[in-house]
C-alpha cells in the first residue's frame, strides 16, 4: 500500500507538467499548419513545409522531468518510512509510465500529422523515427507497423532520457558543494574546451570517432532502428544501475 | 492540591496525599467521582504511570474504588477511615515532635496544655 502511495505521489508530481507540455505541443501542431494554410491562402503562393521530429521535445521534456524529481521525493519518502529500495523501484514504474504516456501522445500526433498532411497542401509531418531512419527496409512507412515501431522506439528513448536526467540529479545530490562545482565545471571544460581543442589538433579524429560510434550504436548507416533501440536499452540499464548504486547509500543531509 | 517537585516525598505519594486532603476537606465527597488518571496527569504534567501509582495506594487502602468504564469514586466511609489513619499519623508527625521540641526549650507539660488552649481560643 505504501509503495502504491509513493508511486502515486511521484506520478502526480509530474501531472501538471505533462498536461501543460502536451497542451503546448498540441497547440503548436495545430497552430502552425493553420497559420501556414491561412497565409498561403492569402498570398496564393504554396511552399512545402515539414514538421518533423517533434517527439524530440518529449525526450527533452522527460529528461528535465527526471532532472527535477529526486530530492523532494527522497526526503518525503523517508519522512513517511519508505525505503530507498521502494522509492527506486516505484521510480522505475513512474519512468515507464511517463515514457508510455508520452509515447502514446506521440502516436496520437502521428495520426494528427497524417490528417494534416492529407487535408493541406505542402505540409508534411514526420516522426523522429522516420527522420532518423528514412530509408529503412524493415520499417514500413505506414500502417500498424509504423505505429508499433514508433511505440517501441519512443518508449525506449523516453525511458533512457528520463533515466539520464534522474542519474544526474541523484549524482548531484550525493555530491557536496565542492564536488558539484568541480564536476559541473570539469564537464564543461572537458567537452567544450579540451576535447574540441585536441580534436582541432588531430584533425577531427575525436569527433569522427564519436560520430562513428553514434552512427554504429544507433544503426543509422545500417538504417536499422532495432540496433538503436537495443543500444538505448543497454544505455538505460547502465544509467539505471548506476543510479541505484548512488541511491542505495543516500542519506538525509543537514 | 499542589505538587511540589522539590518536596522530598515522591510525586506519586504527593498525589495520594493530595487526594486524601481533598477528601478530608470535602472537596471530593464520599461516593463522588474523582478526576481520572488522564485528568490528573494532564493537570500536573506527570506521567500517567506516576498518577496511577498514587491512585493505587488509595485503591489498596480502600479509600477509592474503580468502576470499570465509568471512573474512580471515593469509597463510602472513606472520610472516617482517613481520619483514623491521619490521627495515628498526627501523633507521630506532630505530637512527638512537639514534645521533643518542648523538652529542648524547657517547656513544661502544663505550659504546652496552656498553649493548646490558647491555640483554640485565638
Amino acid at each position, binding site marked *: 500500500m505504501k*509503495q502504491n*502511495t509513493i508511486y*502515486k505521489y511521484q506520478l502526480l508530481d509530474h501531472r501538471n507538467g505533462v498536461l501543460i507540455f502536451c497542451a503546448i505541443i498540441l497547440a503548436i501542431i495545430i497552430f502552425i499548419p493553420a497559420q501556414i494554410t491561412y497565409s498561403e491562402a492569402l498570398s496564393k503562393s504554396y511552399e512545402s513545409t515539414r514538421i518533423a521530429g517533434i517527439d524530440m521535445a518529449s525526450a527533452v521534456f522527460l529528461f528535465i522531468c527526471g532532472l527535477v524529481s529526486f530530492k523532494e521525493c527522497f526526503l518525503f519518502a523517508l519522512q513517511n518510512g*519508505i525505503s530507498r529500495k521502494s522509492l527506486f523501484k516505484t521510480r522505475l514504474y513512474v519512468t515507464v509510465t511517463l515514457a508510455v504516456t508520452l509515447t502514446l501522445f506521440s502516436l496520437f500526433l502521428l495520426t494528427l500529422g497524417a490528417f494534416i498532411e492529407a487535408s493541406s497542401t505542402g505540409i508534411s509531418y514526420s516522426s523522429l523515427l522516420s527522420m532518423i531512419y528514412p530509408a529503412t527496409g524493415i520499417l514500413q512507412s505506414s500502417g500498424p507497423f509504423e505505429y508499433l515501431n514508433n511505440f517501441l522506439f519512443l518508449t525506449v528513448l523516453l525511458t533512457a532520457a528520463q533515466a539520464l536526467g534522474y542519474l544526474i540529479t541523484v549524482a548531484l545530490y550525493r555530491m557536496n558543494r565542492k564536488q558539484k562545482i568541480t564536476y559541473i565545471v570539469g564537464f564543461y571544460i572537458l567537452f567544450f574546451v579540451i576535447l574540441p581543442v585536441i580534436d582541432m589538433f588531430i584533425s577531427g579524429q575525436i569527433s569522427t570517432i564519436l560520430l562513428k560510434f553514434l552512427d554504429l550504436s544507433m544503426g543509422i548507416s545500417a538504417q536499422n532502428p532495432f540496433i538503436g533501440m537495443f543500444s538505448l536499452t543497454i544505455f538505460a540499464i547502465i544509467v539505471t544501475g548506476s543510479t541505484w548504486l548512488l541511491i542505495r547509500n543516500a542519506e*538525509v543531509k543537514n | 492540591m499542589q505538587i511540589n517537585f522539590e518536596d522530598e516525598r515522591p*510525586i506519586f505519594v504527593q498525589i495520594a496525599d493530595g487526594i486524601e486532603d481533598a477528601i478530608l476537606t470535602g472537596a471530593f465527597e464520599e461516593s463522588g467521582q474523582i478526576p481520572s488518571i*488522564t485528568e490528573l*496527569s494532564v493537570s500536573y*504534567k506527570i506521567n500517567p504511570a*506516576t498518577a496511577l501509582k498514587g491512585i493505587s495506594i488509595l485503591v489498596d487502602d480502600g479509600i477509592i474504588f474503580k468502576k470499570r468504564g465509568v471512573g474512580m469514586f471515593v469509597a463510602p466511609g472513606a472520610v472516617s477511615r482517613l481520619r483514623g489513619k491521619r490521627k495515628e499519623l498526627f501523633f507521630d508527625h506532630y505530637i512527638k515532635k512537639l514534645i521533643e521540641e518542648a523538652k529542648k526549650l524547657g517547656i513544661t507539660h502544663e505550659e504546652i496544655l496552656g498553649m493548646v488552649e490558647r491555640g483554640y481560643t485565638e
Partner: protein
Amino acid sequence: MNGIQINDVTKTFGDTLALNQVSLTFEPHKIHGLLGRNGAGKSTLLNIITNRLFADNGTVTIDGLSGTENDHAQGMIYLMSEKNLYPESMTCNEAFKWTKQFFKDFDLDYALNLARQFKLDPKKKIQSLSTGYNSIFKIITALSVNTPYVLFDEPVLGLDANHREMFYRLLIEKYSNNPFTAIISTHLIEEIANLLEYVIIIKNGEILVNESCEALLSKGYSVTGTINQVDTFVKDKEVIGEDVLGGLKTATVIGSINKSTLPDGIEIANLDLQKLFIKLTNEE
C-alpha cells in the same frame, strides 16, 4: 512488542565521531527522554533509527525487525524531525492527506481538530510557516499518526509557553488513552521531567545515563544549609555539584540518605533532573 533496540551503533561524519558504539533499548509503551546538549548525537540517533542515516556499524531493530531499508518496520515509526522533509509547495492539508495514505491509522479528523485548537491554517504551505507553526504542524502530524512508536526531535522548538503547555497536555492525553512508545529529544528538560519514565542522557556520542527516571532521581539528593553545615555534612559523601548563594550552600549528593543523621538546619530535597543533567553534561 520488543521496543527499539540499538546494538553497538557507531556513526561518523568525516572526522567527527557522532555516535560511539551506542547500545540501548527503548522500552515499549513508555515515554523516554533523550537528553543531551547540542551536537551530542541525539538527532543522529533518531535519524539512524528511522533509516534516514545509515550507521557505519551496528544494528537497529524495531519490534525485532531490522529497521534498515525496511518499509514494514518503518511503518511502525514516525519521527517529527527538526529538519523539514516535506516538499516545498505542499500545504498542511495535503500533507495530512498523504500521511493518511502512508500510515493507515492516521486520524485526519483529529489532526484537523488539533489544527483548529492551535489556530494553524491548514491551507498554508508548510514551508511558509514560522518556526513555531512549523513545529505545531509536525506535532499535530505526530500526535495524529497513531504508530506504535512516535519520535519527537525538539518538538517545542519556537513554541510559546501556551502552545508548549497544549502540547504536553495533548501528549499525556494521547498517551494515557492509548499508550505508545514515545521518545522525546529536548533541551527543555524541566518542563517534561515528570512526564518521563526513562531517561537517556547522551554526551559526545556516548550514553551517559540510561535508566528509569525514578531510579535515577532516587540515586541522590540535594542538601541546603549554611556553608559550614553543608560542608560538614557532605564530607566523605559523593558530591557531584555545589552552588553557593551568599552564605547558603546547596550540594548535590549521590547516595542514599539516612534521615536520622540529618543535622538541624539542613534541608534536603529530591534531585532535580535538569540540575542533574547540567552537572553530568558539563564539560569541566
